[in-house]
């Protein structure tokens, strides 16, 4: 079918639905429309993959190393808190 059906999504709508799709928050009908669009649209397929790559990249950020200063500070604090608890 060459004419776009009214129910077809355009790219600009798809990018607003990508997160709900990833979060499994689309209704079954919307999910079908979303996936139908992706099958026909390499750009939006790339967009979805970019979003997944973004999420994966954020997941690799953690944790930061503690600097020696922070480590020492928390060691002191821990000893202090424990001893206060023991005394009180």
């Amino acid at each position, binding site marked *: 079918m060459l004419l776009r059906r009214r129910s077809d999504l355009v790219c600009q709508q798809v990018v607003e639905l990508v997160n709900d799709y990833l979060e499994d928050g689309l209704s079954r009908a919307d999910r079908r429309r979303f996936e139908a669009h992706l099958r026909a649209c390499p750009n939006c397929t790339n967009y979805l993959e*970019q979003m997944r790559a973004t999420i994966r*990249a954020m997941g690799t*950020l*953690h944790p*930061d190393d*503690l600097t020696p200063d922070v*480590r020492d500070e928390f060691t002191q*604090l*821990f000893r202090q808190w424990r001893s206060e*608890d023991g005394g009180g």
Partner: protein
Amino acid sequence: MPTDRSARRALRSRPAPRTILTVEGTREGDGELVARIRAGDEGAFLMLVGRYNASMQRLARTYVPNDAVAEEAVQDTWIGVVRGVDRFEGRSSFKTWLFRILVNRARTAGAREHRDLSLSDGEPAVDPSRFDSAGAWAQPLESWADADDRLVAATWSACLREALGELPPRQRQIVILRDMEGLPSDDVCDVLGISEGNQRVLLHRGRSRLRTMLESELAARGR
């Protein structure tokens, strides 16, 4: 007694707590560390601090106007952990318990500052000029299939952290808890006291912005 340096090396060599890309190794779970802290184990405490302090600092910073106030809230939280560790019953994950305490402290501190934390809703996921009048992409969008390795490489950490820092506070909160710390969405709503709907909107805005920032950074680096 390990030297400070070897302890730090050990800390660094541990895999991240939960990421999609790294495999869980033999590292101790939070529950085991909590049990050791109950017994007064300082090393276990430092491991937990190493695991969560940076995210806590980032999260606290979204509620308060400067790093110093955020540090206070984080430190208050750790005091609460050490003093309250006997009361932690494990009904939620330790991580969720920890972030819930933190958010309470940071929110109390932030309330004094009357920060405006708007939803910044209505902002499009992608700049409208990227689409033609029919709403289709005006230019082809690049595949990032080969960019994955580069995105996780060490040189990107600074860029990703900076991008995260540029998100509006409420979007940043969700991205820290969901995508960095890997909390389930129910726990995130619980910790932040927001609805599922709000959480999804904020996560959508946050992730969309991060993607846009990465896109321009990839373009600037010439891929």
